[in-house]
């Protein structure tokens, strides 16, 4: 049944090569961020010759010059916007998904179908009207412009709906017989059961919000309101010749997400695989 050993070896050797090629650029960001500019331009070896001096040069510089490039503010903005978005999405989506999956509301099927249909709507189409809408309510250049509209996305409702649908009804009924209200049942019985799905949704929302580029680019104006991804892009245009500084800013932007990825890779991989197999 199995392929002969030389064939398996060839496949895995090729795969290893591909895997190295995929990871290498990310490792290069980190290694090169420890080089002074003169070393980057000459490019003689992958490893930095004077990593401590390079670290001091690049990271010391970006963290201590918040005047024209306030990277500390961008980091704080990114953390705030991504956390608030995640909290909002989890709260709103879990309540809605539970109601749609379990409460037998008249009209809920139509509502659910409408929500699912919007999964196919490409986000670009909302850009111009959403801009005008946010401008009208005075939210342009405010973190609210990125946080609140994210709560309208259908993905989380879809994901949690699938999950709540699979929980046995007996568990809920037992809680209700014990005198729990709907909200208590939801809070004490359903949410703890949904932890894996909630974790997946939380990670996806946080990473998506953190890495979002077009949203902050369109909806934020002033530099001190920027998030890290648009900040790094600004850095690039204002410090085009100073690769070391820009790479250090990139490291600040990338590290939190890489930590999340390494810690929760199982949730991420499982979430993506499940999303693809459901339909």
């Amino acid at each position, binding site marked *: *049944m199995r*392929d002969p050993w030389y064939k*398996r070896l060839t496949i*895995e050797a090729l*795969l290893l090569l*591909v*895997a190295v*090629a*995929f*990871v290498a*650029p*990310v490792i290069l*960001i980190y290694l090169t961020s420890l080089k002074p500019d003169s070393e980057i331009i000459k*490019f003689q070896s992958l490893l930095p010759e004077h990593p401590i001096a390079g670290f001091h040069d690049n990271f010391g510089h970006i963290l201590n010059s918040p005047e024209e490039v306030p990277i500390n503010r961008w980091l704080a903005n990114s953390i705030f916007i991504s956390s608030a978005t995640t909290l909002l999405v989890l709260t*709103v989506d879990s*309540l*809605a998904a539970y*109601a749609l999956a379990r*409460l037998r*509301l008249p009209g*809920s099927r139509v*509502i659910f179908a409408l*929500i699912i249909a*919007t999964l196919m*709507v*490409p986000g*670009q*189409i*909302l850009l*111009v*009207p959403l801009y*005008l*809408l946010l401008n009208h309510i005075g939210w342009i250049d405010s973190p609210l412009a990125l946080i*609140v*509209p994210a*709560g*309208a*996305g259908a993905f989380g409702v879809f994901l949690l709906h699938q999950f709540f649908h699979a929980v046995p009804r007996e568990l809920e009924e037992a809680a209700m017989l014990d005198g729990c209200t*709907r909200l208590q049942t939801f809070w004490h019985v359903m949410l703890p059961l949904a932890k894996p799905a909630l974790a997946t949704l939380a990670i996806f929302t946080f990473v998506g919000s*953190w*890495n979002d*580029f*077009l949203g902050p680019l369109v909806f934020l104006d002033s530099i001190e309101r920027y998030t*890290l*991804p648009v900040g*790094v*892009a600004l850095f*690039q245009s204002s410090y085009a010749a100073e*690769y070391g500084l820009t*790479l250090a800013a*990139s490291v600040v*932007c990338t590290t939190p*997400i*890489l930590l999340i990825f390494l810690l929760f890779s199982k949730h*991420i*991989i499982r979430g993506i695989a*499940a*999303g*693809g*197999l459901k339909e």
Partner: protein
Amino acid sequence: MKSRSRRIDFTGYLFLLPYIILFTFFLILPLAYGLWLSFMRYELTSPEAAGSHPATFVGLANYREALADSWFRQSFFATLRFVGMTCPATLILSLLIALAISTIPDRRQQIYRLAIFLPTMITISVAGLVWRWFYAPEFGVFNAFLAHFGVKIPWLTDTHWAMKSIVIMTLWWTVGGPVIILLAGIRQIPDAYYEAAAIDGAVGWRRTFHITLPSLRPVLLFVVVLNVIGAFQVFGQPYVITTGLPERSTEVLLMYIYDVSFNNFRLGYGAAMSWILFLVIAIFSLIQFRLLREK
């Protein structure tokens, strides 16, 4: 009994309410508002001036303007070239990688999945920065390597190469998702299919073509449709890496819509072009459903 069930229904709607408010206000409303805008002339001198310049109904004028606008056409065809190269390449590459990973023992699969998926986690301004450095004409990593063979490629400076370079970078950045979905699909195929095929003498590539690929059809459909929808909305890669150059050969449609809407504040025209892009995406999705779902 009846009154009790009615009360439960009422709290049920309260559960639903917060999401429905957001959904209506930030998804359904802008969707309708955008369509309405696309039939309006709505041009501002600055965003602060919104309200002082009323929108005037112009019917299909914005759509007619788009068809006659040579920059619209050029950015539309740039987008088509991107989609035409990226989507088939993504499909083939992700299938090859997923098939390769599926042949190795489970214990070691995870490390390859993580490696292939890692770039997807990098935000576009960071990924673009690194790749601009790779592609740089003199000090670039690629040309420094190719110089050993006396070759020099104008990665980002030649109109024939620039879009290809963006596509190569995009493959690195986005192929991880399709690989993981396809791999999950491959693992769901029952062993019995392969055993039956082995009895009939199907091994190696024949097994792949007669068992694996047909069984993957629904998963492939999902991957392809999602990939095409995403590719038509390409923005960050050319925006960060080439800024649309050289000679606007990498200025894709969403970049042009962005420019018209938020640099020139011609919002009615921008909305109309967004709807054209939406219609094109919808048509492509329908064609794919037809082609892949039948049989």
